[in-house]
Structures are given as C-alpha cells and as structure tokens.
C-alpha cells in the first residue's frame, strides 16, 4: 500500500478508522459539537473539519484508501451540517437520537422526512375539515372572539376525537374564558 509522505502515519490510520465507523456516530459526534451547541458553533466546526478532511487537499495523495476515507468523512460532515443547520430538522433529529430508536435514526433518512411531514401536517389538525376549522378558530382568537373560536374547535373535535393537541387547545381557551 502506498503511504502518503505528506501525512503523519498515525493521523492517516486514525482517519481511516473514523471513516470506517461513521455509521455508528450521530451528527453531533461527527461534528464534535454538543447537542445544544449554537448554530454559529456548528458552522465553525463544519469549516474546521472541512479544512482537515477536504478531498481537494488529498487530490494527489498516493494512498487510495486515505483518499476514500477523507471523501467519506467530508460527505458525512456535510450531511450532518445540512441537517443541523435547519432548525426544524435539527429539533426532530435531536429528539430522535435521544429516543430508544436511536440506532435507526443516526442518519436523517426517508423515514425521518416522512415523519416530519406528518408531524407538520398534524400541527393544526389531522383531517382537512379539522385543519380548516382550527385555522378559522385561530383567526377568531386573533380578532379577540374566543367564543367563536371555541365553537369551531369543538366542531373540529367531531372530526378528530383523539387529537390530543386539539383537546389541549380547547382547554387553554376555556381557561381563558373563565378568567
């Protein structure tokens, strides 16, 4: 195997090792940042890591395994950064990797995308009628007509009997009316 004379052999071995176990790391571990790291810090880490593992810096390396390892790391670092720079995806991802499903959720995959879409849709109702009524109700709240809002939300309940968020919202508004 051709060794790269411009790279310390220990660093080269370490890099190949990291590349081989990328699939066991979550995105925070990939970036070397805490789960509550501010967005600016993630960006700084992203730049630092790209400096260390940029494929261009190894373009002429005679060691094909090292070139491959660097490329795999660079791709995963970019993937981690892209997901974590998006606040919504980051919130979901951070929840997912703390859950019992962690092992299956280390990469933000199709399932994550689907789940996030469903979560978003359910934010305001699970059925088209429910969503429409809820939207109208929130409009009424903004106008100060809480009574009208409650009427609409209760009608929405007819379509979505098991919607916990909807129940909670009705509870909130009823508490407001009592005051």
């Amino acid at each position, binding site marked *: 195997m051709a060794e790269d004379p411009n790279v310390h052999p220990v660093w080269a071995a370490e890099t190949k090792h990291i590349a081989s176990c990328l699939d066991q790391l979550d995105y925070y571990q990939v970036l070397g940042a805490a789960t509550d790291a501010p967005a600016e810090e993630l960006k700084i880490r992203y*730049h630092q890591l*790209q400096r260390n593992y*940029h*494929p*261009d*810096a190894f373009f*002429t390396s005679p060691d094909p395994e090292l070139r491959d390892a660097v490329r795999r790391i*660079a791709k995963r670092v*970019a993937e981690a950064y*892209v997901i974590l720079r998006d606040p919504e995806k980051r919130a979901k991802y951070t929840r997912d990797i703390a859950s019992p499903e962690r092992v299956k959720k280390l990469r933000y995959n199709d399932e994550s995308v689907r789940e996030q879409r469903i979560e978003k849709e359910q934010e305001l109702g699970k059925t088209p009628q429910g969503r429409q009524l809820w939207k109208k109700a929130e409009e009424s709240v903004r106008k100060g007509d809480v009574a009208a809002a409650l009427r609409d939300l209760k009608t929405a309940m007819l379509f979505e009997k098991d919607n916990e968020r909807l129940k909670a919202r009705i509870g909130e508004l009823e508490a407001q009316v009592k005051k």
Partner: protein
Amino acid sequence: MLASLSVTELAMGIDLGTSYSCVAIIEDGVPTVIPNEWGERTHASVVSFMDDGRVLVGNDAKKQIITNPDNTVYSSKRLIGRFFFSEEVRKARTVVPYNIVEGPNNSVRIRIRDTLYSPQEVAAIILKEMRQIAENHTGQTVTKAVITVPAYFNDNQRQATKDAGKIAGLEVLRIINEPTAAALSYGFGQGYNQRVALYDLGGGTFDVSILDIGDDVFEVVSTAGDTYLGGDDFDDRIMHWLADSFQQQQNVDLRQDKYALQKLKEAAEKAKIGLSEHEVVQIHIPLIYTDENGYSLDFSTTLSRAEFNQMVMDLVQRTFKVCDEALQSARLTANEIDCVILVGGPTRLPIIRSSVRHYFQKQPLTDVDPDEVVAMGAAIQAHALLDTQQSTYLLDVTPLTLRLATVGGYTEKIIDKNTPIPIDRTRCFTTASDNQEKVKIKIFQGESNLAKDNTLLGEFEFSGFKVAARGEVTIEVTFEIDTDGIVNVSARDVETGTQASTTISLGSGLSDHEVAQAQQRNEGLMVSNR
C-alpha cells in the same frame, strides 16, 4: 531549488464561455492570463470548418460567421448537454445559420457538410486551442486542466463539458463553477470574514452565488441562475430593433435573410460594447440588402444609451429575480451582503452596474477584469489541487434538486438544491414482482414535483442481485454528487452485499466508445494558425 520547481506540475484554468474563452496558469505564484501569439487574451468560442479541410478557432473563426455561415459554429455552449427537444435547442435552430440535427437518444448534433459533430466535439476543438495557447507560451506540454461551467449547469451539461475535455486529450482535474472561480481570484480570506455576492452575467447564462468567506474557507451558501439569459439576449434586442427600423425605412424584413441577420447581430454586439463608453453610438452596415434589381442598400442609424436601457430593462429585472431567489435560499437580505463582485463581459454595461449598485446598495467590485476573472480562479484551483500545501478550501453546492421518478408522473426529492458537495444519500428499493431480475429508476434535476417539468438525467437499471419472491430483495441505491457536481448512482443487494451492475439508458451523453472515436477525430483535425 530544482526539486521545488518540479513539485507542482503545470495545470491550466480554462473558462469555456458561450461567447469567449480564456486560459490562465499560475506563473511565479501569480494567476496569469495567457495571450495567444497575436496578444489576444480572450478568444471567441467559435469554430469554423473551411472548405479545404482546415479548422479555424477563435477570433479568426468569428470573422467567418458571415462569409461561411453554414460551416461556422458559435454559441455551441448553449447546446451542450441538452436534449434535441429542449426549448434552448429549438430557439437556437431558428437563429443560427449552421445546421442543428437530432442525434441518437434525442441528443444534438451539428451537421457540417457530410459530417456530424456533437457539441462536445466542438467544445473540444476550443479546449484544444486553449491548450495550444498555454503550450506555446510555456514551451511545455500541458494536459491537466480545471474547466469552469455556469453554477446553474445541470448534471448532463457538466458531464458533457467533462467529456469535451477528454476528447481534447485533457485530464480534467475538476469542473468548477464560474462564480466560485471568480471569488477565488479576488483572493479573499486574509483573516477576515466576508459575505460576498457574485453577479455573473456571461454571454449565454446568468448566475448568482452567495459565499461566506472565512479565512481560507470559501463556503457557497446558495446559488441560483438562469441558463437562458445572457449578454447575447441583449444583442438580440438591438438586432431586432435594427431589423424593425430597417423594415420601417425600406419595408423589407431582414430577419428572413440569415446572412443579413448575422450582419445585424455583429453590428448589435459592437453597438452594445460601444454604449459602455459612449452615450450615443452610430451604427452603419454597408450593403446589408440587395433588392431584386440588384441594387444594394446600406443601413445607418444611431442608438442612445437611454433607448438601449429601455430595450433591455426587463432582462435586467430578470437578473434581480434570480438574486432574490439566491438571497432567499441563503436566508439573507441584500443589505447583509458585504460586497458584490461583477463577473462576465456584459457586466461592463452601465445599466448593469447602476442597477446592481441600486439593488445591493453597494458599489460593486470590478478590480479584476470581468472577462478574465473566471479563468484566473480556475488556474488557482488547478494549482491548489496539485499542490500538497493546500491553501484554500472550496465548499460548493449543488444548484438543482435531485429527484427520483415516482408513480403517475410525479417525483420526490433525494438531494435538495444548495446542499454542499460532495454528498451522498442512500435509499432502499424492494422488488415489486416475483423473480424480478431488474430494478429500474429514473432520475431528474429540477424544482418541480412533476417529472415532465424537470430535466431527465437518465434511467438506471440494476441487475445481478438475488432473484426471489417479490418484496424479498432489498436493493440499496446510493446517489452521490461528487466534487464536479456530477451525479453518480450505484446499487447493492442489502442481504448479500453484492454490488449490482448498473446500466444507464436514456442519457443525453456520449458513450465511452463515442468519446474515444471523437478523440481520434479531434487528433486528426488540422487546426490552422491563420
């Protein structure tokens, strides 16, 4: 000392433009544009096939557009990597005098007498000329190159450009984006952070890229573009205005005569360039039309800057729609940009300069010649790739969303636009019928959910996996966008781990065999030095 001279091989940066091309190398540590023997620093991207078998390239070939219109190919970059049925090709066929015909798999070919050339081959002739210029200047063989493309080029166009390099006998180190190359030329990153917008109006394309530059890292945050908008469209406006005025004066429509149209186009380009310096230009075209009695007519008129500005206002506005889009993707507003750089010859126009200043509320930078800035950046990148002492790190993005065809003519996203590259994404597919031997997927690039509104990149067929009852075989497909912005697709059988073999069909590109054939033909061409 001798040893250090041989550390870095020579590698050139080539800006392969729609209208003009330019080549640069690093000389004594400084990016330098190489002039040809006549001192010309930019070269018309025109190839003219002469009756005696000679081939002219560059500014000489451009002179042939009028006298040898059928055999002189210009603006071929507008055709590269496109399908024959695309809007751009349809438009080109109505405008250019040379013969554009349909090739295999809906590809584009140019017919010169009895020979068919692909747009890649035409580009290869220009690239070979750039190489010749570099070799004449350095007295050395130069085979390694970085070639630039518009940031908004799709996979087909990038692949075709890379193939053009191969046909020209070059080792293409990298395909990089024009605005990103321009940013490299400005030598930022001396220890301070800058947010830079590149406004790149070329001959045939318009791109905007927004970069975060910190120390030695050039991170492209977003890019947007319009591959149907460029300086040529400004010329066309003047050309049609001239044709209209002539029609009013003489009641003759010059647009029916491709020869006259070329003369108008030439006059239009000259007038446009003149308006960058003067408030009013005189336009005089001798012998533009010969009537049925054999009487020849000249055409004279004047064009003022104000008239011109009015003619092109909507084109200028279109560039700012693209700027809006790039800023929106980057989640920024125009006043959060620290500096604006102008790239491309057409940005010399006063209307562009003043509109850019107005939009960004900043005086745009023009320190480096807008015609040369891209080639110089490409030379810097070429040098950096071969140098083990890496000094700048480019983090570019993919300009278009990569999509997978689903049922009913719809698509779903695989990799979003403005995702940093290189990147990969893996998806699993299961077989839909018993004993299925092949899995086919179709991929697209574009921003629509509907397949038909995106660009087809190709249909991939996987085979060689276990044959079993339906749903029992899972194939893991990896979509990778590499550092050239080119899409690679590979698949493996999850259970056995064996790599499935992949064949691409329906692509617009050249096969390896066609590239090899074109390479041979290219070597045999008699490129003439005037």
